[in-house]
């Protein structure tokens, strides 16, 4: 099986969410 470690997956999902949020902050309309 190639299944990864659970903690590793969860931590990286939060990292991906953070990166997505940063992308959104860059492109969203201000004020």
């Amino acid at each position, binding site marked *: 099986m190639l299944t990864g470690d659970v*903690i590793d997956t969860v*931590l*990286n999902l939060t*990292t991906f969410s*953070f990166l997505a949020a940063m992308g959104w*902050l*860059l492109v969203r309309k*201000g*004020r």
Partner: protein
Amino acid sequence: MTRSRTVLSASLVVIAAVGIWGIVDPESIVAGASAIVDQYFRSRGWFVMLSVSFMLILCIVLAASPYGAIRLGADDDRPEFSTVTWVAMLFAAGMGVGLLFWAVAEPLTHFTFAAELMDPPLAASQSLLATNFHWGFHAWAIYGTTALTIAYFAFRRGTPMLVSAPLEALFPEERWVRVVGWLSDFMAIVAIAIGVAGSIAMGVFQVADGVDVMLGGEAAAPWLVAVVFVVMVGCYLPPLMVDLGQGMSKLSDIAMAIALALVAYAIVLGPTAFVMNSIVSSFGEYVTVVIPRGFQTLSFFDGAVTEWFRSWTLTYMVWWIAWGPFVGVFIARISRGRTIREFVLGVLVGPTVFSIVWFGAFGGLGLFDALQGSGALLTATSENVGRVTFVLLELLPLSGLTTLATIVAAFLFIVTSVVSAAFVLAMFSSGGNPDPSTRLRLLWGGLLGLLGAAMVLSGSIDAVKKMIAVGALPFVFVSILLCVCLIRALAEERLGAADAHR
């Protein structure tokens, strides 16, 4: 309760708790910190390297693009300090005591590790390359982007010098911003306090070892470490009570002048040709691989190599991130009136070139001894890293004088760092007040002492590195958030200028 009060209370509670825990049960705090750091580095090593590479590339792009012409301040502001003074101040603030501590020890530690995997000459050049990478452009890009964001918003948009200010200036009145802004200020304070306390411990180990060498001892006894610690705390508390104005920067100039004299002395009195060859070749190797090396995560190597990567490269990167808000505020304060291009070139190039010369010289001397000499420095590195700089000085003439000079420089670096850190912490915990109260500065000075004691009691430099990393981990995210705020603000300014032209 006002917002600055809640930031202050929360950070005081957390930092005091960590300090007390570290003093009462040093072993369990080190074990806890190690478990967290190991998991974080296993899972997010790629993210740390990607982040620091992004910061470096952002700096280069900003300097090379039309944004480079934007001035940090009003368009007619001009710099307060000459470029040479400014670069010297940057360097003294950003590197400090670590330089003296690791000058010989770091290249030799890498050499010992690499020599098991490759031929000694190749191991020697790889060890200098790794050291230059740890202290070079990436470190300064971390400081640079944090400083640039704080400076840009403070001087062009009139915000207070707070980590949360850029976000609040860009998205005012939004509820999530208040939460994230609060957390950013809180995380900045924790990262600075733990990072600076780690440097206090490193400075205490270094000075105690130096004094022990002068007394002819074999290893610094616990009582000597305790005496050095108490004297150090006794020296940094008075300057927090009275504003010494330019006095503190003079002390830091003296430390920097001693460091310069030491490196010149090592180059001239050591095997000069070998040392110059080592500086030139390590410079060439470093600049040709600096960008790809930043993306290197060494994931296809075996356990020993990945462990080395985590305990050195990743640890250094988060260490610079921990110091980022503190050094960032300092750099921002002295950089008003410079253009973004001048700022980036000065912050990145000046200190990095000095680091390469420094490690090329001291590391070169260490490698000379390992490859062609007695090997005494390699033995000293494996026994006690804090002592290696002094063992090297003993192999050169006038060792009594240079040992004393090194002790004085280490002492001054620590005292000036702690005084400025206590000032920045007081500023951050009082809503960005540029002139925080004496009481608050003293409170932070005392807490840094408490945390420093916890770090000293942890007993080893490896434990100190783990504790610094754990304090800095959350701030990695804040650093990226600051970069995003900067990019957005610059784009807004450009669009505003374009609209004005129409």
